[in-house]
Protein backbone atom coordinates (compact mmCIF):
# COMPACT_ATOMS: atom_id res chain seq x y z
CA UNK A 1 0.00 0.00 0.00
CA UNK A 2 2.81 2.33 1.03
CA UNK A 3 4.79 1.44 -2.13
CA UNK A 4 1.82 2.35 -4.28
CA UNK A 5 1.52 5.66 -2.47
CA UNK A 6 5.22 6.35 -2.92
CA UNK A 7 4.99 5.56 -6.62
CA UNK A 8 2.07 7.97 -7.00
CA UNK A 9 4.03 10.67 -5.21
CA UNK A 10 7.08 10.01 -7.35
CA UNK A 11 5.04 10.17 -10.54
CA UNK A 12 3.53 13.44 -9.39
CA UNK A 13 6.90 14.94 -8.50
CA UNK A 14 8.50 13.84 -11.76
CA UNK A 15 5.51 15.13 -13.79
CA UNK A 16 5.66 18.46 -12.00
CA UNK A 17 9.40 18.69 -12.69
CA UNK A 18 8.87 17.85 -16.37
CA UNK A 19 6.14 20.47 -16.65
CA UNK A 20 8.43 22.95 -14.95
CA UNK A 21 11.24 22.13 -17.37
CA UNK A 22 8.93 22.45 -20.36
CA UNK A 23 7.72 25.77 -19.03
CA UNK A 24 11.27 27.01 -18.59
CA UNK A 25 12.49 25.81 -21.96
CA UNK A 26 9.65 27.32 -24.00
CA UNK A 27 11.42 29.35 -26.73
CA UNK A 28 11.42 33.10 -26.18
CA UNK A 29 8.79 34.94 -28.16
CA UNK A 30 10.36 36.63 -31.19
CA UNK A 31 10.30 40.42 -30.94
CA UNK A 32 7.70 41.98 -33.19
CA UNK A 33 9.43 43.66 -36.14
CA UNK A 34 9.63 47.42 -35.70
CA UNK A 35 9.50 50.26 -38.19
CA UNK A 36 12.26 52.84 -37.93
CA UNK A 37 12.39 56.18 -39.73
CA UNK A 38 15.42 57.80 -41.34
CA UNK A 39 14.85 61.41 -42.31
CA UNK A 40 16.67 63.00 -45.21
CA UNK A 41 17.23 66.66 -44.47
CA UNK A 42 19.95 69.29 -44.83
CA UNK A 43 21.82 66.88 -47.15
CA UNK A 44 22.11 64.20 -44.45
CA UNK A 45 20.54 60.89 -43.47
CA UNK A 46 19.33 61.32 -39.89
CA UNK A 47 20.25 59.23 -38.00
CA UNK A 48 23.28 58.40 -40.12
CA UNK A 49 23.71 55.08 -38.29
CA UNK A 50 20.72 52.99 -37.26
CA UNK A 51 20.69 49.82 -35.13
CA UNK A 52 17.90 47.41 -36.13
CA UNK A 53 16.84 43.81 -35.65
CA UNK A 54 16.75 41.50 -38.67
CA UNK A 55 13.30 41.81 -40.22
CA UNK A 56 12.71 45.38 -39.04
CA UNK A 57 11.47 47.90 -41.57
CA UNK A 58 13.20 51.19 -42.30
CA UNK A 59 11.24 54.07 -43.78
CA UNK A 60 13.32 56.75 -45.49
CA UNK A 61 11.50 60.08 -45.83
CA UNK A 62 12.86 62.95 -47.90
CA UNK A 63 12.26 66.22 -46.05
CA UNK A 64 14.99 68.01 -47.98
CA UNK A 65 14.53 70.66 -50.66
CA UNK A 66 16.32 68.55 -53.29
CA UNK A 67 15.78 65.16 -54.93
CA UNK A 68 17.69 62.29 -53.31
CA UNK A 69 17.82 58.50 -53.40
CA UNK A 70 18.89 55.69 -51.09
CA UNK A 71 21.31 53.19 -52.66
CA UNK A 72 23.25 50.29 -51.18
CA UNK A 73 26.86 51.40 -51.49
CA UNK A 74 29.00 48.29 -52.08
CA UNK A 75 27.16 46.47 -54.88
CA UNK A 76 24.02 48.56 -55.32
CA UNK A 77 22.11 45.48 -54.13
CA UNK A 78 19.08 47.58 -53.31
CA UNK A 79 17.98 51.14 -53.79
CA UNK A 80 15.12 53.54 -54.14
CA UNK A 81 13.90 55.50 -57.09
CA UNK A 82 14.52 59.24 -57.01
CA UNK A 83 12.74 60.71 -54.01
CA UNK A 84 11.32 64.20 -54.43
CA UNK A 85 10.50 66.30 -51.38
CA UNK A 86 7.90 64.41 -49.32
CA UNK A 87 8.52 61.05 -51.01
CA UNK A 88 9.49 57.99 -49.01
CA UNK A 89 11.03 54.55 -49.49
CA UNK A 90 10.43 51.54 -47.28
CA UNK A 91 12.55 48.39 -46.99
CA UNK A 92 12.88 45.35 -44.74
CA UNK A 93 16.41 44.96 -43.39
CA UNK A 94 17.94 41.49 -43.50
CA UNK A 95 21.59 42.37 -43.16
CA UNK A 96 23.85 45.23 -42.20
CA UNK A 97 24.75 47.55 -45.05
CA UNK A 98 26.24 50.89 -45.94
CA UNK A 99 24.20 53.13 -48.20
CA UNK A 100 24.46 56.54 -49.84
CA UNK A 101 22.68 58.96 -52.16
CA UNK A 102 24.08 58.26 -55.62
CA UNK A 103 23.16 61.81 -56.69
CA UNK A 104 25.16 63.29 -53.80
CA UNK A 105 27.82 60.66 -52.99
CA UNK A 106 28.99 62.53 -49.89
CA UNK A 107 25.67 61.69 -48.21
CA UNK A 108 26.17 58.35 -46.46
CA UNK A 109 24.37 56.16 -43.94
CA UNK A 110 24.65 52.79 -42.25
CA UNK A 111 22.16 50.10 -41.18
CA UNK A 112 23.51 47.80 -38.49
CA UNK A 113 21.65 44.56 -37.71
CA UNK A 114 22.18 43.74 -34.02
Amino acid at each position, binding site marked *: MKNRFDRTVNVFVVSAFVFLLIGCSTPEKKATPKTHTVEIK*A*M*QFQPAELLVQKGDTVLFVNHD*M*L*VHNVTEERTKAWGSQSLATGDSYKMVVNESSDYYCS*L*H*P*VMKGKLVVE
Partner: protein
Amino acid sequence: MKISPISKTGFGLTLTMFAFSVFALAQDKSKLSDPEVAFVAVTANQIDIDFAAIAKQKSKDASVIDFANTMERDHKAVIAQAAALAKKLGVTPKNNAVSKGMLADAEKTKKSLRSKSGAAFNKAYIDNEVAYHKAVIAAVETVLIPETDNSELKQLLQNVVPALKAHLSHAEMLQKNYK
Protein backbone atom coordinates in the same frame (compact mmCIF):
# COMPACT_ATOMS: atom_id res chain seq x y z
CA MET B 1 36.91 87.26 -45.68
CA LYS B 2 39.50 84.85 -46.91
CA ILE B 3 38.90 83.10 -50.18
CA SER B 4 40.78 79.83 -50.43
CA PRO B 5 43.70 79.73 -52.82
CA ILE B 6 42.70 78.62 -56.28
CA SER B 7 44.72 77.15 -59.12
CA LYS B 8 46.60 79.46 -61.44
CA THR B 9 44.31 78.72 -64.37
CA GLY B 10 42.51 81.99 -64.57
CA PHE B 11 39.47 80.58 -62.82
CA GLY B 12 40.91 81.78 -59.54
CA LEU B 13 40.91 85.33 -60.79
CA THR B 14 37.37 85.03 -62.10
CA LEU B 15 36.04 83.58 -58.88
CA THR B 16 37.87 86.03 -56.72
CA MET B 17 36.19 88.65 -58.87
CA PHE B 18 32.83 87.03 -58.16
CA ALA B 19 33.44 87.16 -54.44
CA PHE B 20 34.82 90.66 -54.82
CA SER B 21 31.68 91.77 -56.69
CA VAL B 22 29.55 90.76 -53.72
CA PHE B 23 31.86 92.03 -51.02
CA ALA B 24 32.60 95.31 -52.73
CA LEU B 25 28.98 96.34 -52.46
CA ALA B 26 28.84 95.32 -48.83
CA GLN B 27 31.97 97.29 -48.10
CA ASP B 28 30.44 100.32 -49.79
CA LYS B 29 27.64 99.98 -47.25
CA SER B 30 25.25 99.89 -50.21
CA LYS B 31 23.08 97.28 -48.60
CA LEU B 32 21.41 94.91 -51.03
CA SER B 33 17.63 95.08 -50.95
CA ASP B 34 15.72 91.81 -50.72
CA PRO B 35 14.75 91.90 -54.43
CA GLU B 36 18.44 92.38 -55.22
CA VAL B 37 19.48 89.53 -52.92
CA ALA B 38 16.93 87.32 -54.68
CA PHE B 39 18.34 88.26 -58.06
CA VAL B 40 21.92 87.57 -56.94
CA ALA B 41 20.86 84.18 -55.58
CA VAL B 42 19.08 83.22 -58.79
CA THR B 43 22.02 84.45 -60.87
CA ALA B 44 24.52 82.40 -58.84
CA ASN B 45 22.41 79.27 -59.40
CA GLN B 46 21.93 79.99 -63.11
CA ILE B 47 25.67 80.46 -63.63
CA ASP B 48 26.37 76.97 -62.28
CA ILE B 49 23.62 75.53 -64.49
CA ASP B 50 25.37 77.16 -67.46
CA PHE B 51 28.70 75.63 -66.42
CA ALA B 52 26.98 72.24 -66.16
CA ALA B 53 25.56 72.60 -69.66
CA ILE B 54 29.05 73.12 -71.04
CA ALA B 55 30.32 70.07 -69.12
CA LYS B 56 27.52 67.90 -70.48
CA GLN B 57 28.35 69.06 -73.96
CA LYS B 58 32.12 68.68 -73.76
CA SER B 59 32.95 65.88 -71.31
CA LYS B 60 32.82 62.16 -71.98
CA ASP B 61 33.71 61.29 -68.40
CA ALA B 62 30.76 59.63 -66.62
CA SER B 63 31.69 61.08 -63.22
CA VAL B 64 31.88 64.60 -64.62
CA ILE B 65 28.60 64.20 -66.52
CA ASP B 66 26.84 62.79 -63.42
CA PHE B 67 28.15 65.69 -61.37
CA ALA B 68 26.99 68.19 -64.00
CA ASN B 69 23.54 66.57 -64.05
CA THR B 70 23.33 66.92 -60.28
CA MET B 71 24.37 70.58 -60.44
CA GLU B 72 21.78 71.27 -63.12
CA ARG B 73 18.98 69.46 -61.25
CA ASP B 74 19.76 70.94 -57.82
CA HIS B 75 20.32 74.53 -58.90
CA LYS B 76 17.17 74.45 -61.05
CA ALA B 77 15.27 73.26 -57.97
CA VAL B 78 16.65 76.15 -55.92
CA ILE B 79 15.70 78.66 -58.62
CA ALA B 80 12.18 77.20 -58.74
CA GLN B 81 11.83 77.61 -54.98
CA ALA B 82 13.21 81.13 -55.07
CA ALA B 83 10.77 82.01 -57.87
CA ALA B 84 7.86 80.50 -55.93
CA LEU B 85 8.84 82.45 -52.82
CA ALA B 86 9.24 85.69 -54.77
CA LYS B 87 5.78 85.18 -56.24
CA LYS B 88 4.31 84.47 -52.81
CA LEU B 89 5.93 87.58 -51.35
CA GLY B 90 5.01 89.70 -54.36
CA VAL B 91 8.68 90.52 -54.88
CA THR B 92 10.24 90.97 -58.31
CA PRO B 93 13.93 90.04 -58.23
CA LYS B 94 15.90 93.11 -59.23
CA ASN B 95 18.99 93.15 -61.39
CA ASN B 96 21.86 95.01 -59.81
CA ALA B 97 25.56 95.76 -60.05
CA VAL B 98 26.55 92.59 -58.19
CA SER B 99 24.60 90.22 -60.42
CA LYS B 100 25.82 92.05 -63.52
CA GLY B 101 29.41 91.66 -62.34
CA MET B 102 28.84 87.97 -61.64
CA LEU B 103 27.44 87.39 -65.12
CA ALA B 104 30.34 89.22 -66.75
CA ASP B 105 32.84 87.10 -64.79
CA ALA B 106 30.94 83.92 -65.64
CA GLU B 107 31.17 84.73 -69.35
CA LYS B 108 34.96 84.79 -69.06
CA THR B 109 34.95 81.45 -67.27
CA LYS B 110 32.62 79.91 -69.86
CA LYS B 111 34.87 81.13 -72.65
CA SER B 112 37.88 79.57 -70.93
CA LEU B 113 36.02 76.28 -70.38
CA ARG B 114 34.90 76.11 -74.00
CA SER B 115 38.50 76.49 -75.14
CA LYS B 116 39.50 73.23 -73.40
CA SER B 117 38.85 69.59 -74.17
CA GLY B 118 39.45 66.07 -72.88
CA ALA B 119 41.25 65.67 -69.57
CA ALA B 120 42.17 69.36 -69.48
CA PHE B 121 38.49 70.27 -69.69
CA ASN B 122 37.51 67.81 -66.95
CA LYS B 123 40.16 69.23 -64.65
CA ALA B 124 39.26 72.82 -65.44
CA TYR B 125 35.52 72.22 -64.91
CA ILE B 126 35.97 70.43 -61.57
CA ASP B 127 38.56 72.95 -60.34
CA ASN B 128 36.13 75.69 -61.25
CA GLU B 129 33.28 73.96 -59.41
CA VAL B 130 35.39 73.70 -56.25
CA ALA B 131 36.39 77.35 -56.41
CA TYR B 132 32.95 78.59 -57.44
CA HIS B 133 31.16 76.79 -54.62
CA LYS B 134 33.68 78.08 -52.08
CA ALA B 135 33.08 81.62 -53.29
CA VAL B 136 29.30 81.26 -53.36
CA ILE B 137 29.17 79.70 -49.88
CA ALA B 138 31.25 82.57 -48.53
CA ALA B 139 29.05 85.14 -50.25
CA VAL B 140 25.78 83.54 -49.10
CA GLU B 141 26.92 83.13 -45.49
CA THR B 142 28.63 86.44 -44.98
CA VAL B 143 26.77 88.82 -47.28
CA LEU B 144 23.45 87.58 -48.62
CA ILE B 145 22.01 86.03 -45.44
CA PRO B 146 23.03 88.92 -43.16
CA GLU B 147 21.71 91.48 -45.66
CA THR B 148 18.31 89.84 -46.11
CA ASP B 149 15.41 91.32 -44.18
CA ASN B 150 12.57 88.98 -45.10
CA SER B 151 12.62 85.93 -42.83
CA GLU B 152 11.37 83.49 -45.50
CA LEU B 153 13.99 84.58 -48.01
CA LYS B 154 16.64 84.39 -45.27
CA GLN B 155 15.44 80.86 -44.41
CA LEU B 156 15.62 79.78 -48.05
CA LEU B 157 19.20 81.01 -48.27
CA GLN B 158 20.06 79.21 -45.04
CA ASN B 159 18.48 76.01 -46.36
CA VAL B 160 20.60 76.20 -49.51
CA VAL B 161 23.93 76.31 -47.65
CA PRO B 162 24.06 72.56 -46.79
CA ALA B 163 23.43 71.75 -50.47
CA LEU B 164 26.23 74.08 -51.57
CA LYS B 165 28.56 72.48 -49.04
CA ALA B 166 27.63 68.97 -50.24
CA HIS B 167 28.30 70.09 -53.83
CA LEU B 168 31.68 71.42 -52.74
CA SER B 169 32.58 68.14 -51.00
CA HIS B 170 31.44 66.18 -54.06
CA ALA B 171 33.57 68.37 -56.36
CA GLU B 172 36.58 68.06 -54.04
CA MET B 173 36.12 64.28 -54.06
CA LEU B 174 36.22 64.28 -57.88
CA GLN B 175 39.08 66.75 -57.97
CA LYS B 176 41.42 64.06 -56.60
CA ASN B 177 40.94 62.17 -59.89
CA TYR B 178 41.96 65.11 -62.08
CA LYS B 179 45.35 66.22 -60.75
